[in-house]
């Protein structure tokens, strides 16, 4: 294998490891939410530091790659993509940590009905699917798989856009659990941002694989639909 190829493989492996860690954080967040496991929530917050460190080392690796190997064409696209995906993943990690803080802050269990009504659990499931699909898409260089996130992102957006109305419902229905309702609403806002990050990652993957900057084309495409 060429020197540059082995370096690419190494960087790829690292990024996938980062990805796995972020997915694990999201899975744990889901578990913690379902079972109101405050210990697990604290564990997530502790692990967040590892993700930050991971982001730094990958950043460094990318810098080294550029400084030492002067990549061009597909190699350059690869490293730029890795750099951006790295940042996006770290943000997703942040969000998981943020959600876990709401869980650990609450000494009483969340009202299932509120979560159900506002579809926070469904959103979390959708966002985890997105991150997992993207990991697959990156690993297999499969743009079709990467594109599956757009549909889910629209679903997230839809839930997010009605979240305030649903929150009002809940506030009226459970007047003694206003704090909970507001926290769930905050969680939903956060999860919606996972969707945004995932969309960015999808664009990066597609850029890397198809060398297409679809960011600008998106608008036209949206109009057509």
């Amino acid at each position: 294998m060429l020197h540059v190829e082995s370096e690419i493989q190494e960087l790829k492996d690292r990024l996938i490891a980062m990805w796995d860690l972020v997915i694990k954080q999201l899975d744990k967040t889901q578990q913690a939410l379902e079972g109101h496991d405050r210990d697990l929530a604290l564990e997530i917050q502790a692990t967040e530091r590892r993700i930050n460190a991971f982001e730094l080392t990958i950043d460094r690796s990318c810098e080294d790659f550029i400084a030492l190997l002067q990549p061009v064409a597909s190699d350059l696209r690869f490293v730029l993509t890795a750099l951006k995906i790295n940042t996006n993943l770290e943000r997703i990690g942040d969000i998981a940590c943020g959600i876990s803080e709401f869980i650990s802050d609450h000494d009483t269990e969340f009202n299932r009905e509120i979560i159900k009504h506002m579809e926070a659990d469904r959103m979390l499931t959708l966002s985890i699917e997105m991150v997992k699909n993207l990991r697959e898409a990156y690993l297999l260089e499969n743009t079709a798989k990467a594109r599956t996130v757009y549909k889910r992102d629209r679903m997230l957006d839809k839930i997010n856009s009605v979240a305030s109305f649903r929150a009002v419902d809940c506030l009226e229905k459970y007047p003694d659990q206003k704090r909970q309702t507001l926290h769930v609403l905050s969680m939903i806002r956060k999860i919606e941002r996972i969707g945004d990050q995932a969309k960015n990652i999808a664009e990066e993957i597609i850029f890397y694989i198809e060398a297409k900057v679809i960011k600008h084309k998106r608008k036209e495409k949206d109009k057509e639909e």
Partner: protein
Amino acid sequence: MRTKIETNNVHLHYGDFHALKGINMQIPERTVTALIGPSGCGKSSYLRLFNRMNDLIDGVRIDGKILIDNTDIYAIPQSEVDRLRRKVGMVFQKPNPFPKTIFENVAYGLRVNGLKDKKLIEGQVEKALRQAALWEEVKDKLKKSAFELSGGQQQRLCIARAMAIEPSILLMDEPASALDPISTGKIEELIYELKSNFTIIIVTHNMQQASRVSDYTGFFLLGELIEFDETKKIFRNPEKQQTENYITGRFG
């Protein structure tokens, strides 16, 4: 990592010209070290210290200590110099195969050093050509003149020639500067692969080459070693302003 080569306060004079001014460096075993710097900065002179090639020039004076495997190579008797050169192979700027067959070029060093066993020589030649990633291209024309090879192949032949006698150090003086980009790429890949077996020191004018192939980089300027550090450090964030100016092309 074990230190393979060490120089302590080395000065080199060509007559009145002070070519190297107190160079200190420690080169770890099985790594690639690149020496960079503008023309006439002393990097080639420094490279040629390690196999005592400077001895061939009249009026050279060398002070300081140069240790290879903890032995001061300038304290050994003249008769040991050939033995030293067996341990320290060298590849030159211009491909310079001997006017012999491809096989005999690689076998030359073996014969020079007293090997006579035909089988042994054949085995060693094949091994060296394989190491130099040339075997597949020349295995059917070993008896042909080395001059029939392309420039890039000739240079890899010269690398094979140097490696056949199994040195532990390989000195390369701008080994790719006379080659086209494809051949250069091949040589660079080769250097990258060879470092698992050799301690390699390469002089290059090409900063990208230094950054691609080396683990350590030394920047020379006017006979002084301005900075010596991990290549990553040098190319990401050098300590000295002069180094920064040179590698970013703001030199002058």
